[in-house]
């Protein structure tokens, strides 16, 4: 993750605003592309948080079952 300081909520909020701006349209192609790239990056960050949380949950469950 290239922005580890971004929390899940921050990433999600920024993602929502990026999508809104993209949907509103009006920017230049270059701006739109940059927005889209940012959106993908933010969505990845969100997904990483969720995957990480799920992995921790699974690990805790596995540890308990082993114990």
């Amino acid at each position, binding site marked *: 993750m290239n922005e580890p300081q971004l929390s899940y909520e921050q990433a*999600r909020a920024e993602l929502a605003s990026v999508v809104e701006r993209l949907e509103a349209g009006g920017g230049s*192609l270059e701006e739109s592309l940059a927005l889209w790239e940012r959106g993908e990056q933010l969505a990845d960050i969100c997904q990483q948080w*969720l995957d990480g949380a799920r992995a921790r949950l699974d690990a805790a469950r596995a540890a308990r079952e082993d114990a």
Partner: protein
Amino acid sequence: MTQPETPKSTPEEPWPVRVVSQKIGSWVSKLGWVWVDGQVAQISRRPGASTVFLTLRDPSADLSLTVTTNRDVLDIGAPELDEGARVVLHAKPEFYAARGTLSLRADEIRQVGLGELLARLEKLKKLLAAEGLFARERKRRPPFLPGRIGLITGRSSAAERDVLTNARRRWPAVEFRVVNVAVQGPSAVPQMVDALKVLDGDDTIDVIIIARGGGSVEDLLPFSDEALCRAVFDCRTPVVSAIGHETDIPLLDYVADVRASTPTDAAKRIVPDLAEETRLIGLARQRLGRAVTGLLDREQHRLDAVRSRPVLARPQVMIEQRATEVVALRDRAARCLDHKLAAAAGDLRHTLARLRALSPAATLERGYAIVQRADGHVVRSPADVAKGDELRVRLAAGDLSAAVTDSPG
């Protein structure tokens, strides 16, 4: 006060025993007659002897005095006096010079009846309550799971067994430090107070239980003792009273931080039930897992929803839209150019037709010719030429050269 005739004792002139003895005797007798409250620890009525010896003990502290009295005094005031009974007696200290011993000489002994004892307890209860020893806000709460438990109880008593067995059944790892004491009789209070001090001073002890099975009102009197109540109140460690009783509540129950109805009840109040706690933890864990999983699922759903929005899911649309625009513009440009080209072509054709209409070629086709001088000048009159001039004749099918043979000019 020493008698004036006796000189001060020195190593060179020490006092003989008789003088010292006599002086002690006179000091002791100065206290005079007093009323004493105490508990009979021992009584010896020798058959035939008119003097009766009693060991009178303080009910709260490990202190005792010997009392001598006449059998008649005893028979009048307390004919059925037995060990453990509470008495009030009128006595004067006496120094028995022959043996160097001290005793109280009693001329009146009254056995304190149960009714009076209870009345005294009631008074003591009011006093302690007024002092705040029973105040709810002064009660300390024992820890949920004590590290080590101090237990003050009778040796091999049912109370001891009840506390230990029930506590271990609930929480097998529970640890006890048991101090066995007398739980009735004259030495009960001092022993319990000492045990409290020892356990309260032990930092590994988190709670102290004082346990005893049921008994008669007299048997349970030590548990209403003022010194014990104050010692419990002074403990830093929470104290649990577990005295089996039916009707009269010992004062210890009021001053203790937790009041258990029986030793078994004390075990229940002091240690949690392992099985029940394990079950609750399991339940909490399940709920925890469900809550976190639910949260993750909801968030995943939200994220999926955002990612499936066309702007993110089909970013190529963004480019395709612009590509379409480019194609449309290109088409428009092409159409525009076509139009212009067509117009220009039409224009050209028209102009060419006009050009052609103006051209002499058609006239030449009809047999006319154009005659030009060598310098290109078109000859319109005979005067334009002179004899011998070279002429160029332009016909429909081509040119030919001619010469002027005659000229009017």
